[in-house]
């Protein structure tokens, strides 16, 4: 891989790589160690003597217990999962249909519509959250999971469509034509021939959409108000900070446990996730 002496390999590869891994992963280590550290150890000033902040000799599950017994953390976990799954499912159906239509059917304004959907892909949530909050209130969706289930697809569908178009374009036209000659209708050809070929794309879009909706913050922050309705990121933010007091132990435990479902989903589909990420950029 690298020609020349051994020290070159260290200077050009191992040391920079170690630096990157340390920088990128240390906050997670810090999150984990704080979650299991008793309060007495947590709140020691940075310059106190004989204090090692990187390790604990008395690990405790106190913060986790606090989360599940004193807060609505389990409800937040359930809300987040439910919202992420349903909005991902809606977005996949819409994205697959729209991607198929835009990449394989001839109809007027196809180009314009494609561009329009691409533009909505680039609209950040922070541009529209104030008028959207009003609309949600007018539809009587405020403070319900549906306010998020219906709005999350606005940033998931465009990227699912975009990704699926790439996959559908790669399927040879002959495959569909063969099926049609054998008597399949357009609908059947799409459902039984084209979509199965694009399953890897659907998985990529799905896992990417799931992590994006798990990650969403500002809509959930603005649309939800009662503690029992909240998602993990919003619940942790609003219920574990009272005024200026941060409950760091439960906060870090909540951050850790709130990250685990995404991390698990991600670890099963790393390859699909990566192809979704890069596909969503390249189109």
């Amino acid at each position, binding site marked *: 891989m690298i020609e020349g002496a051994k020290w070159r390999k260290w200077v050009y590869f191992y040391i920079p790589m170690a630096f990157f891994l340390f920088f990128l992963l240390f906050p997670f280590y810090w999150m984990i160690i704080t979650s299991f550290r008793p309060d007495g150890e947590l709140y020691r000033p940075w310059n106190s003597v004989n*204090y090692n902040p990187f390790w604990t000799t008395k690990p405790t599950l106190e913060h986790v217990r606090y989360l599940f017994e004193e807060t609505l953390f389990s409800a937040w976990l359930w809300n987040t999962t439910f919202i992420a799954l349903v909005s991902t499912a809606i977005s996949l159906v819409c994205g697959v249909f729209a991607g198929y239509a835009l990449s394989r059917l001839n109809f007027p304004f196809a180009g314009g519509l494609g561009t329009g959907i691409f533009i909505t892909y680039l609209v950040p949530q922070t541009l529209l959250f104030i008028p959207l909050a009003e609309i949600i209130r007018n539809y009587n969706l405020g403070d319900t999971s549906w306010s998020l289930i219906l709005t999350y697809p606005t940033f998931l569908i465009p990227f699912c469509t975009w990704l699926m178009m790439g996959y559908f374009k790669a399927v040879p036209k002959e495959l569909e034509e063969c099926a049609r000659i054998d008597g399949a209708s357009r609908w059947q050809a799409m459902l039984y021939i084209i979509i199965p070929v694009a399953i890897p794309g659907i998985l990529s879009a799905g896992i990417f959409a799931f992590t994006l909706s798990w990650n969403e913050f500002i809509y959930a922050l603005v649309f939800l108000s009662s503690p029992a309705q909240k998602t993990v990121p919003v619940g942790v933010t609003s219920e574990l900070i009272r005024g200026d007091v941060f409950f760091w132990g439960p906060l870090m435990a909540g951050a850790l446990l709130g990250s685990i479902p995404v991390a698990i989903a991600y670890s099963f589909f790393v390859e699909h996730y990566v192809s979704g990420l890069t596909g969503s950029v390249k189109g």
Partner: protein
Amino acid sequence: MAVEAISTFNTPPQPRRHRVLEDERWLAFLLLVPTVVLLGLFIAYPFVRGILLSVTNSRVGVAGDFVGFANYYKIWNDSIFRTAVYNTFLYTAVTTVFKLGLGLWLALLLNRNFRGKAFTRAFVLLPFIIPTVLSTFAWRWMFDPTFSVINWTLYHLGLITGRINWLGDPDLAMISIIVVNIWRGVPFFAISLLAGLQTISPELNEAAAIDGAKPWQRFWHITWPLLLPVTMVVVLFSVIQTLADFQIVYVMTGGGPANATHLFATYAYQIGVGTGLLSEGAAISLAMFPVLLLIVVIQLLYIRRVETR
């Protein structure tokens, strides 16, 4: 798989419903309806509503009257808004340079063959997939004025004698949020650029090496030009996300100390949701729109140019 499926098609008399689905235009229309309805209802309509809202003096619970450009005039003269605009551009420019530089470096490292490569790549992406708000809390805890592990380390290395109040000083607070944004963005750059690097044929580099090109020359004359299209798209995507960023600042500083670290989105939130001045908040977040539009136009033109080449 395809063969099995085909054998199930025997549909001699087609009902009317199917004839509609046989027409390409009708089928396209039906397939696009759900997407167009959802995007229209929750993107196009709120956009129009936002513009209408921004020219009234509406507050929470009060419909408000038409006031023309009064809100825009007001924010134009608002020193906090001006700081927020300056911060947004500074934040975007500085983080983008670092994300691109570090991301490219990491991509080049990951493009080599080494043991545990797949594993390393999976771990490198973690900052990008873990919910930003949750990981930013870990950073806030690391930057805590009294219990900062960073201060602890610097103190024990003998680099500082007194504490550094990371989030209490305007400049240090800005640096802190910039660091967190770089931390979160580097994996996205690295993995996207790595995908771009993998499409470059190694033979090109080998041929140049045989001709005596130094590693730096090979990078500059072969890798970089071939990587440029991917780089452009990744940078534009990232710029949009960074300009519109909310979560990192909201968690790290909440716009403070003394409104010194606001971005467009956090200030719009503070005015629109915090104080309930809906129309002014809408005007602040819409002030982002011209910049976003410019970037989107550049991106569309660029993609078109690449596609037609």
